[in-house]
């Protein structure tokens, strides 16, 4: 039974890990856009 749970937990750990990298990239991109808009507003 422990092997079964290990496999299921590993599967979701991989998917959640990938989704968190996507989220991090999205946040970084939003920050870049916000920074760009701030600079545009200043000029």
């Amino acid at each position, binding site marked *: *039974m422990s*092997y*079964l749970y*290990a*496999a*299921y937990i*590993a*599967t979701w750990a*991989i*998917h959640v890990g*990938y*989704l968190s990298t*996507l989220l991090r*990239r*999205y946040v*970084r*991109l939003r920050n*870049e*856009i916000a920074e*760009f808009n701030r600079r545009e507003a200043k000029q």
Partner: protein
Amino acid sequence: MKRVFPILAVLTAALLSYALYEALVVAPTEQTMGDVQRIFYYHVPSAWTAFILFSINFVASVVYLIRRSNKADIVALVTAEVGVVFCTVVLVTGPIWARPVWGIWWTWDLRLTLTLVLWLIYVSYLVLRRFSSSGQTPLLAAVLAIFGALDVPLVYFSIWFFRTQHPQPVIGGGGSIDPRMLHVLLINWLAFSCFAALVCWSRYYLEVLRREVDETLALEALLEPRGSQTRTSQTWRAG
């Protein structure tokens, strides 16, 4: 996208939860392997999903080579990335199943080795796309993807044409499967396919947005007077 995506995300989460319940509770326990056989309900759908994603990557790469379409290039990138995630699941859950059933974590069996090679090819594809700044990168990546896709049928048919340690295919391969197990397997495949489609969709829009930002910043840098440029090309490529 903003309206439909949350609804689809909730539906997919519900479907994945139902598929998990079916795999752990409803599916009958296999006579010889016991509960460890239930790994099959995650391992096989993940493999099928990875194969479909790599096949889409192949088609998108061919389209890119013919038409130089930006959309096809993004689809190729996205499907390769999500395909690698699913292929990783296959390579992790397989040995976890093999340890109690075969007594070993890994063997250099034809199917296992070809699956590892497939994973390595697509990881190298992603490394190429991430670290090469040449204008030819999408073209080189498309060619690599076409060679990589040749491994997909080899992986799939390796257990049909060669004697391997890996179990025989459950559908169309001469083996038999309890209809209740097949039902649970197909529900899990549907759930993981919906999940993969959603992830690809969000990754696609993320890539479109990133390219738009890159183009805007590059244009801004061109229009700025010399000496006042503060950004480096490395900063634009972030993400």
